[in-house]
Every structure is written in structure tokens, then in C-alpha cells.
């Protein structure tokens, strides 16, 4: 009885490992929402960090379909650049 339950648990773990955490939504904001926030935060700014934030957010969105965490890595960098850009 215990064996099938463990099997199911392991299978669920596998699925969660492959799932793009950003796409799920249940774990927090999606990559799209975070990218929109970066664009809003840097809107009208033309300094280096603002441009970099927008570039990195776009890369994160492009990477969003991949089953790895690159989208989150790039989005984290984008948000850091946006914070340094000033603005809203």
C-alpha cells in the first residue's frame, strides 16, 4: 500500500522539478508580471541600468518557455538593474 504512494510522490516531485516555477503563478508572480513591473518601473528612464533592466526582462520572458530556472535568474538580474535605475 505504501509503495504506490511513494511512487506517486516521487512522480509529483519529478513533475515539479520540470515545471517552470515562474509560470505556475501559485508560487508568486509570474515572469510576465515581473517583466511588466520592470518595464513600468523603468518607463521613461534612459540610463544604462534602465536599458539593462528592460533587456534582461525581455531575455527572461524569452527563456520563460524553457524548463529551467534561467528565466528567474535573468529576471532577478533585471529587477536588480531596475532598482539601480532609479525612477518609480
Amino acid at each position, binding site marked *: 500500500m505504501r509503495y504506490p504512494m511513494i511512487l506517486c510522490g516521487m512522480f509529483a516531485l519529478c513533475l515539479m*522539478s520540470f515545471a517552470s516555477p515562474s509560470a505556475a503563478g501559485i508560487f508568486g508572480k509570474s515572469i510576465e508580471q515581473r517583466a511588466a513591473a520592470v518595464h513600468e518601473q523603468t518607463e521613461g528612464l534612459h540610463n544604462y541600468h534602465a*536599458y539593462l533592466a528592460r533587456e534582461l526582462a525581455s531575455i527572461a520572458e524569452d527563456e520563460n518557455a*524553457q524548463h529551467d530556472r534561467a528565466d528567474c535568474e535573468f529576471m532577478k538580474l533585471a529587477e536588480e538593474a531596475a532598482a539601480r535605475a532609479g525612477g518609480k
Partner: protein
Amino acid sequence: MNRNLLTIIACSTLLGACAWHGGINVDRSELDEAREHVAAARAAGAETCAPKEMAKAQASLLYAGHELTEGIHPDENAMLIDSAIKHADQAVAICKKKPETIALTGVQFETNSDELTAASVAILDGAVATLKKRAHIRVEVSAHTDSRGQAAYNQALSDKRAASVRAYLIGHGIAANRLSAKGYGESRPIADNGTAAGRAKNRRVELTVLR
């Protein structure tokens, strides 16, 4: 039974590990050339004088650092490396070009004040028309003084005068995000401060076109 369980745990762990096969590593040897070009652009001050190109170069470098680590798309990797180099070189080229300056000849202020004279208004209206016509450009309003008086006072006065001109332009329909203002005090003379004519030339306001 235990053996089967162990097999499942091992497979699950392996699959979980495979799920994150990326990371961003820009220290790879394949990126040596791109890294050098980006560093050269940064050293040339490109974050300030060519921020857009510099950001594209840095973003391409980071992206290449990820794609190479992933090791799946050789064509895409080469394209990203080329992109980093191309944008870094463009940034350097932009920084080497002298910025375009629109002189606002005749714009004057009341003595020791940031209040525009009546005669200056017509000149600024001309600048408003130019900025409306060239709607894609962003400019820095730069104000300069001659060298009479204390440098700190001149700096503060030029800061206020630049802000005053910027406020006028915004008040006449130019978007605030297209305009920045900076006072340079007496630090950038274009004529001899030892003569009245030279000092008059040095007291000036310009619009510097930003990239």
C-alpha cells in the same frame, strides 16, 4: 522492493538535477573576446555616453554566458557573442563622436538670478519648436557661467538656471522624460574670461543631444 525504491529515488534526483542545467557564467574562455570588448566599452564610459548600446552588449554577454553553459544551441551562442561584440564596439564609436549641441544664443537671465529675461522667451519658444519637430531626441539643458565670483556660487546658479530653462520647456509641452538639466558653473569656458566679450560668451545655455 528496496532496490526498486532506491532506483526510483535515484532517477527522480537525476531528473530533478537535469531540470536546472543552466546558470550564467560569463567567465568561460569562449567569451574572452566578447568580455574584452564589453570591458573596453565600459572603460570608455559607455554606460554614460552610450547607455543603450552598452546595455545591449552586457545583456548579450550574460545571455551568451547562459546559453554556452546550457550547451545546446551553437548557432545561437555564436550570434550572442557577435551581438555583444557588435554592441560594445558601437558603444565605443558613439562615445568617440562629439555630441550635437544646440546653442540657445541670446537666452539670458536677470543678474544673479534664474529668472529668464523677457527677450529670452522668444528664443526658448524656438527651442520648443525644434524639440517638437525632432520628437525622437532627448536633450540635456546645460547652463554655464563666467568665472566672476565664487565657483560654488556659480555652480549653484548654473544648476538653477538649467532647471529654470527645463521647467520652461516642460511648461510648453516638451515631455519631462526627454529633458535633463545640469549646471556646469564656470568649469567649461569657451572664451577668455579676461574680457567682457569672452565672459558674455561663457554665460550661456545649450541643449546637448543625448544618445
